[in-house]
């Protein structure tokens, strides 16, 4: 992970191509050189502006409007009605919202930290394994990583199936006394894992951790490979324990990688939709909604209420932007320095 970009851009080369005008053949194009980067950006900017930024502004507007079928249908369209903060007072007054908020936050915290812990542990393990073994494990976790979210949901829904699921079969294998001691029961046949909000989220966490730890592991492994072996050698000579080595050498050196991985995981886990959609079979159990699901259900189940759906989406976006603002600032700082 050597950084060539800082050299090629700005700093290392004080005369970027934009200024090398003298002596350039005119055949480059008939356009002034300063305009080239802007021209190159036009298509991308158009797409981002039209499909991301402008819609974001619209969400903020719709959140204060009443928008239902009569306002969106193509025939005999009615104008959207301005309702002020009514959408917000309505969702804040509903316990579904607070459940969804709690589910979203608790899930993100647990899933992100578990993914990071498991992923890092596996990354460290991969670094220690022999070549053959580590290749085998990498190929294995690559499979888990590659499974599309919808299929992830399907697979774990099946594993946790009440009747024919393999989890209940495995739990029944436990000796009765052990099972009774740990869980207070011995018979697991027909245990409905996808019924209660808490157990749906337990399955969801397992699903998400299963599918996302490989990325962390492989990234950590890549980072570890970049740490000079002498450092570890020195630590070994000093007789440092494995944990101490990790804390004093590995972690500080990988800190930037961890920062990125954490933020990426947060972004991904805050808005988990596909897996949850499959696990609970669409927006069926309203106690188990997260904010994405609640927004979707409000806006697209009949009768559609785009206004309150947008209000929920806006809350989710604000939370996400606040949580990731620190990271954005840091990156921008780096960018300015380079």
């Amino acid at each position, binding site marked *: 992970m050597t950084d060539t970009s800082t050299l090629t851009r700005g700093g290392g080369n004080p005369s970027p191509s934009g200024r090398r005008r003298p002596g350039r053949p005119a055949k480059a194009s008939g356009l002034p050189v300063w305009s080239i980067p802007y021209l190159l950006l036009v298509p991308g900017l158009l797409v981002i502006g039209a499909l991301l930024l402008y819609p974001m502004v619209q969400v903020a507007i719709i959140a204060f409007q009443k928008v*239902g*079928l*009569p306002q*969106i*249908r*193509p*025939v*005999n369209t009615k104008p959207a009605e301005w309702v002020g903060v009514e959408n917000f007072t309505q969702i804040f007054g509903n316990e579904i919202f607070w459940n969804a908020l709690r589910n979203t936050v608790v899930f993100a915290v647990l899933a992100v930290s578990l993914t990071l812990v498991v992923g890092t542990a596996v990354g460290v393990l991969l670094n220690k394994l022999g070549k053959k073994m580590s290749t085998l494990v990498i190929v294995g976790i690559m499979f888990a990583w590659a499974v599309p979210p919808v299929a992830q949901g399907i697979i774990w829904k099946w594993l946790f199936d*009440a*009747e024919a699921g393999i989890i209940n079969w495995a739990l029944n294998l436990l000796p009765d006394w052990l099972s009774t001691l740990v869980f207070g029961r011995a018979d697991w*046949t*027909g*245990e*409905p894992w996808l*019924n*209660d909000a808490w157990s749906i989220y337990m399955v969801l966490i397992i699903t998400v951790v299963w599918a996302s730890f490989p990325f962390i592991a492989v990234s950590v492994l890549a980072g570890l490979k970049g740490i000079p072996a002498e450092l570890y050698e020195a630590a070994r000579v000093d007789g440092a324990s494995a944990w101490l080595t990790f804390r004093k050498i590995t972690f500080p050196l990988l800190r930037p990688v961890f920062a990125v991985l954490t933020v990426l995981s947060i972004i991904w886990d805050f808005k988990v939709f596909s897996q949850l959609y499959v696990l609970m*079979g669409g927006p*069926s*159990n*309203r*106690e188990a909604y997260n904010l994405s699901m609640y927004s979707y*259900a409000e806006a*697209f*189940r*009949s*009768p*559609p209420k785009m206004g309150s759906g947008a209000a929920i989406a806006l809350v989710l976006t604000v939370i996400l932007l606040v949580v990731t603002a620190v990271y954005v600032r840091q990156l921008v700082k780096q960018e300015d320095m380079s």
Partner: protein
Amino acid sequence: MRIAKITATTVTTAALALGLAACGGAEAPAEPSAAASGPKYSGKELTFWRLGDSNPAAQKYTDELVAAFEQQTGAKVKVEWIPWPQVNDKFTAAAAGGTGPDVTEIGNDQVPLWQSQEALAPITDIVAAGDQAEIPKNLLGLETIDGETYAVPWGGGSRAVLYRADWFKDLKIEIPKTWDELVAAAKKIQEKKGKDVDGFAFNGGSDANHLLGSLAWTGGGEYAVKEGDKWVGKLTDPGFKTGFEQYTALVTDGLSSKSRLSQNTTEIRTRFANNKVGMYLTASWDLPGIDEDSKGKLKGDKLAFFPLPAKDGGEAQSFLGGNDIAVWGTAKEMDAAKDFVKLASGKEWGVKYATDGGLLPVYPEALAKLSEDPAQAPFAAAFAKAKAFPADPNWTEANETKAVLQNAARQVIEGKATVDEALGKANTELENILNQS
């Protein structure tokens, strides 16, 4: 809507002619007026949405109906099947995107909602004349709004308990006459057939209120009544509470497994076909599907119906269900769509729709004939006492989207709330939803 009004007059004449042709039946297809005008809609294509899944019987009926229409008019009809649980999403998307069909089947309790969203075209002229004029006016309650009719009743459906007659015979169980006998029968089935079998299946899915409603109405309860222009929730009344307790007890007493709190009739039906359910509330339209799902093992005298018994004997009240056929508000081929509805809901194809699909015909003579059939008698009996859900466009939101009562039942079953707490909360929520403007 405006398009519909402008064309209404021109259509009426055409529809009448065609209606007559349909009346004549298959024997006399060469009605002079129809023949003279030739294939009226040749080159046009209609999209027709049918609801449910395409079991062979329903498929056959639809094919025949479509063939008849195509032959008469030269139009092409494209049929698309929409599973019941997806109907609302599909309608919503269609209404929003302007991509709807020309003609659609529709549940009668959904007509107020989609009329309020202006998704249906008024077809008052169709029910005012021809065969359709014979349809009793009391069956048009949900379909007629402010003097205009938006859908034609196609088949009625009341529900009864479908049970495994072969198991009843094996285990020497008598047909239950009271609720307690039904509970005892369910327990006996579970005892002998395995505890993963639901003695009487709990329905907590999108159509949960068909079961809960029957129990609650029988207990003397109501969901809500309109006082002035406001709905007042009645969920906390003792009558409703009795029915609700009966409903949740299906799970808390273990008659139905806790693992399937959100199963709907379709899912129950599949389990029934796989020998995992002893009894459940439904109607005979489930029979072809069961035959198919069980690979032909479950049919004939292995299954039968009995009317849902009330708590202290007598028959419970059933939901006045029914399917209608309607013209979509933004139909591209409005004239052809209306003619299609006219043909499909006429006496020949209307009665055939009901009898082939396991529904009750909406034409009085045909219905009278049906009550003489012992297999259909439970439905005819239930039909007489049938009741409907609050006739309000917002009912669908309470019934399916917010699943107010399914949620209340879940709270009680999982021990998170007492019956009174859960119903109290549900009542407030129901009132809020129904009274939205």
